[in-house]
């Protein structure tokens, strides 16, 4: 008998019926405290009128009024549509598109140069958010100060401008996309590297072009990371707002849903933080996130993608 299997039998054979529970308990405690309880509290507060003015002592239960207010709010559709556009554009062009292009390019050049190139693309992710966004602000700043104006626009004799308000949507996509691209880039690169070399070489020997190899060999091997990145980044982008907060603070029509919730619940210029209303906005985001996750899991058939472990169990 294989010694590994023998060991497995010894360690599992003498256990009690609920051993699995004790193994899971530490993780379960963390999940309950940091995932389930915050969601429950979020939904709970969303049913109250809690705000700075009521404090934690004088709030009242108002049922679904916050949700009714959201449904009749003149800006609800505007924020929702912006969020959909922002998530879709950033995801398609950067978190998936750009990251795939970088992964493909850097795995088709010499290993050292490819590694260096990917390392450069990690810089936006490892730079502190405020510093990173301030760099963008100075790229876009008004003439005569902005880097864009000074280095490109002026020498070409074109009209200078304050570029951030000129193309705010483009900037929020770029700022987030340049960070997001590195996530997929790492996963895709490692997935491409793990494709057996004989398959890669054989495809070329059989006469396929590089493009055909990408289309018929590499992409099919990337199904799992592609679907994972799509799912993970959709949910991540829906709730991310910190770059937009620092870049525009929601000005010029860049108030995505998560930023709207933040502003209502945690940041007003002079006073009343509407925790109840803000958490109702957050609760809707949580609900959309859960629904999206379930749709992704079912539609993409994740279970089929995860292979059974190649090990004998009996």
């Amino acid at each position, binding site marked *: 008998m294989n010694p590994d299997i023998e060991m497995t039998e010894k360690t599992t054979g003498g256990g009690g019926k609920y051993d699995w529970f004790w193994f899971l308990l530490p993780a379960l405690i963390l999940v309950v*405290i940091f995932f389930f*309880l*915050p969601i*429950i*509290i979020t939904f*709970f*507060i969303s049913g109250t009128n809690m705000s*700075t*003015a*009521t*404090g*934690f*002592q*004088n709030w009242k*239960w108002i049922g679904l009024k916050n949700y009714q*207010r959201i449904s*009749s*709010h*003149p*800006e609800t559709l505007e924020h929702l549509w912006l969020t959909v556009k922002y998530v879709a554009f950033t995801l398609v062009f950067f978190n998936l598109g750009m990251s795939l292009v970088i992964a493909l390019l850097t795995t088709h050049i010499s290993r050292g140069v490819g590694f260096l190139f990917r390392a450069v693309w990690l810089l936006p992710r490892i730079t502190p958010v405020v510093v990173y966004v301030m760099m963008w*602000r*100075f790229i876009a*700043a*008004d003439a005569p*100060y902005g880097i864009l104006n000074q280095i490109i626009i002026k020498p070409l004799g074109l009209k200078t*401008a*304050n570029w*951030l*308000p*000129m193309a705010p949507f483009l900037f929020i996509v770029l700022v987030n996309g340049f960070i997001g691209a590195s996530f997929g880039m790492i996963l895709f690169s490692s997935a491409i590297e793990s494709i057996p070399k004989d398959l890669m070489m054989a495809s070329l020997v059989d006469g396929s072009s590089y493009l055909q190899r990408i289309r018929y060999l590499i992409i099919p091997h990337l199904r799992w990371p592609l679907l994972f990145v799509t799912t993970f980044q959709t949910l991540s982008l829906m709730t991310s707002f910190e770059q937009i907060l620092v870049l*525009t*603070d929601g*000005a*010029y*029509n860049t108030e995505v849903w998560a930023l709207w919730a933040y*502003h209502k619940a*945690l*940041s*007003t*210029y*002079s*006073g*009343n*933080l*509407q925790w109840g209303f803000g958490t109702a906005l957050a609760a809707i985001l949580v609900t959309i996130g859960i629904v999206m996750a379930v749709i992704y899991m079912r539609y993409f058939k994740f279970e089929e993608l995860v292979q059974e472990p190649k090990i004998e169990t009996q």
Partner: protein
Amino acid sequence: MKRIFLLLLALMVFPALIFAGGKQEVAKEEGPKEVKIVIRAKGNPTEHWKVDAFDEAVKLLNEELQAEGDNRTVVIEKIFDDASWADVVRSFAMSADAGEAPDIILGGHEHIAVYSTAGYIIPLADSVSEIKKMYPEFDDVIDNLWASCMLHGKVWGVPQDIEARPLYYSIPKLKALGWSNAKIKALPERIKKGEFTLDDMIATAKEAVAKGVVEPGHGYWHRPKRGPDFYQYYFSYGGYFYDPDENKLVIVEDALEKWYAFQRKIVDEGITPENFIGTDWRIWHDTVSHGKALFWNGGSWQWGEWAGIYLKDQGGQEYLFENVGYALQPSGVRGKSGGTLSHPTVYMVTTEKASGRKGRDLAVRLLAKVTTKELNTKHAVESTHIGILKSQANYPPYNKDRFLSDVIYMLDYNYFLPNHVMFSTWEDAVWEGMQAAEIGQRSPQDSTAATIKLLQAELGDALIVK
């Protein structure tokens, strides 16, 4: 339901307490002799006297207590940072709910509405006359400033500083435009009388751009980022914020539309750059302080920043007096006097429950000790804020400061934000509409309609549309 919520909250907090280790403060039996008072304020580095003045004040208070035979001694702890108002409100509310708030909190006067409604602060007196009788120092406060500390007939705070938001202008640029010295000197008076209006300012700035006196887009610069300064235009066209009889916020449709039209007009006329909102503060300060714009709106406190930071090498205040003039914000209506929005910061005293400490009487008494011409002038001069005391007008260290003496008359033409609990919602909505109008995303008319619709949705019965 509240029990379930508290249980959930406790479950959240419980692990934090476990992992927090032995850092928790055990309540000490300190005895009756030492009373700790914690003061929190925010400000830029030149405004450190907002807390540092308490060092001297507490000495005076302890001397008095000793002379009276009172066995209590006050010790203070100061917290001072440069946080945003939103951060201050958030952290203060959390600490007050946890019973760990400072004893004295400095805030914008409009914070009184939220803090008092939540039960975080105590009323200091039932009327202005009552608080003036409490301590002679309070009687010295300029009378109309108490209005900013009132809510529901009670006094909730003590003014700490106040400012004006003047219209600044470049003297050399006006001269280059052909204005005589006498005409330039008379400008503040003409604005005060309503003879020089916002339309005149636009026309002058337009002429300066056309004649090449200033670069295109440099005829008039307003504040580059969000702030209450913009409400001055709304006010200039006859708008106002609040109906005290109804205790409701007010939006005057006609004034709002004229304000939004003004914001778009300055761009259309080429005196303010396209997409100007959001320009970095450093760019703004650098441009206006070096006289590259003809007119601009700023705060009186910025005079000190320009002198001390941006013009330090060119002579500071001397350079400014030679090159920059200041006046009230012009009216939008001919014949109506100019004005200025003042935003007093006020000290408030927290409740025993919010702070977790006793000794409210001493906190109020300490505020009296800090409200003196000697201590307040140190803050006023260093941070170029206007004095809050009647006695400062004749106090040499104050009135020898030319700028502060020059602008003190503006307090006769000032107005305040309302102390209403939902005012921040009013602000959010009008700011959004103003941006949309100025950057041309919506016409001033459409922006006005959208803003009113938004205000009605957000405020409901708490709003009056005029």
